[in-house]
């Protein structure tokens, strides 16, 4: 192939502002090739990597948003379930409380009845004890009185009356005592 480069000014044609000939067509072809090369280079070096990165980031953000939405939906579902369960628990709690309240009321009524019965019983027994104690005290008092009276009577008789009168009074008293004891 014949390849030659002319550098001498005498061999290089003069320039021009505008022309429509074979050299213009060649220049157009070279310039078209130049722009294509430039587009390929800039696209490969800069535009495509940035575009690719932006696309990946958009995809990532989209997937994150989608994931977040799914989680939100899931959370909403769980929340609804929990709320439903809480409502169920609440109604169950009310039921349990109601039954506990009824049981407690029944138990309370039962305890009160028992307490009343026991109180009545205690009172009855106390009353009986009081009566028995009173009887006992009455008996003791009577015996004391008798003893004191006997003692006083003995002393009086010892000083005031003779032996005969004493015997007669003793017999009368014994007779009266026997009569009283028999009547009681």
């Amino acid at each position, binding site marked *: 192939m014949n390849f030659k480069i002319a550098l001498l000014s005498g061999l*290089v044609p003069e320039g021009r502002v505008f022309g429509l000939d074979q050299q213009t067509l060649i220049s157009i072809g070279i310039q078209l090739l130049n722009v294509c090369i430039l587009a390929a280079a*800039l696209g490969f070096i*800069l535009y495509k990597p940035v575009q690719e990165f932006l696309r990946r980031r958009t995809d990532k953000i989209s997937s994150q948003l989608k994931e977040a939405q799914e989680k939100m939906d899931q959370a909403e579902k769980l929340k609804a379930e929990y709320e439903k369960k809480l409502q169920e628990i609440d109604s169950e709690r009310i039921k349990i409380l109601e039954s506990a309240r009824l049981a407690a009321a029944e138990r309370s009524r039962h305890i009160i009845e028992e307490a009343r019965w026991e109180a009545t019983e205690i009172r009855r027994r106390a009353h009986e004890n009081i009566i028995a104690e009173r009887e006992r005290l009455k008996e003791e008092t009577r015996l004391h009185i008798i003893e004191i009276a006997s003692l006083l009577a003995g002393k009086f008789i010892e000083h005031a009356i003779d032996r005969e009168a004493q015997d007669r009074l003793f017999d009368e008293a014994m007779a009266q005592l026997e009569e009283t004891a028999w009547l009681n």
Partner: protein
Amino acid sequence: MSVLPGGDILLDFRVDNLWVLQIGGVEIWITRTIFNTWIIMLVLIVLALFLRFKLRRFEEIPRGLQNAMEAVVEIFDGFLRNSGGEKLMPLGKWFFAVFAFIFVSNISGVVGLRPPTADWATTFALALATFILIQVMGIKYRKTGYVKSFFEPLFIFFPLNLIGELARPVSLSFRLFGNILAGTILMALVYQLAPIIFQFGIPAVLHAYFDLFMGALQTYIFCVLSIMFIKGATE
């Protein structure tokens, strides 16, 4: 600028030829436009490599450069998605490169380069690429419907439709070429003809308008029109 023997000043706006290659008997002129295009390509590729190096590991929470790069990519993708839906999305890389190339070319006058877009060969190459994309996308998404559209509303309208279709790359290329060449010529006039007193400050304002503002505007117009044409072909 050259001074002719009579003392007249020759303003040179031509695209110089730097080398001539002969490959298989075919003469190929390596013009200043092609050379400057290579410089711009090199700058853009080195810049892309630098950015890629700085962004070796993308962070989940972007900061600084990563924020800027993400914003750029999202702007292109978002614009294409909003314009033509998912159908146009694969063209993001192409329009990113075209936008970067045209913009840097348009503003290259600021650093003294002759903008490659001030050469019709460059703008027509870009417009031709758009034209090819229009046809490819039209046939891909509309199949025979796209071919039929050349015969609508009646068969006799085919020549008009065909001319209208062929006019698109021509109008696209000449719009960009004319605007940038006009800026280049005006700046050359200012630098070569204006008195030295006007060489301070004023060129900066003119550069800001013709190179930066018009450069950015024409870049946007070229890309938006290309996208609209392609979108029209797919619907």
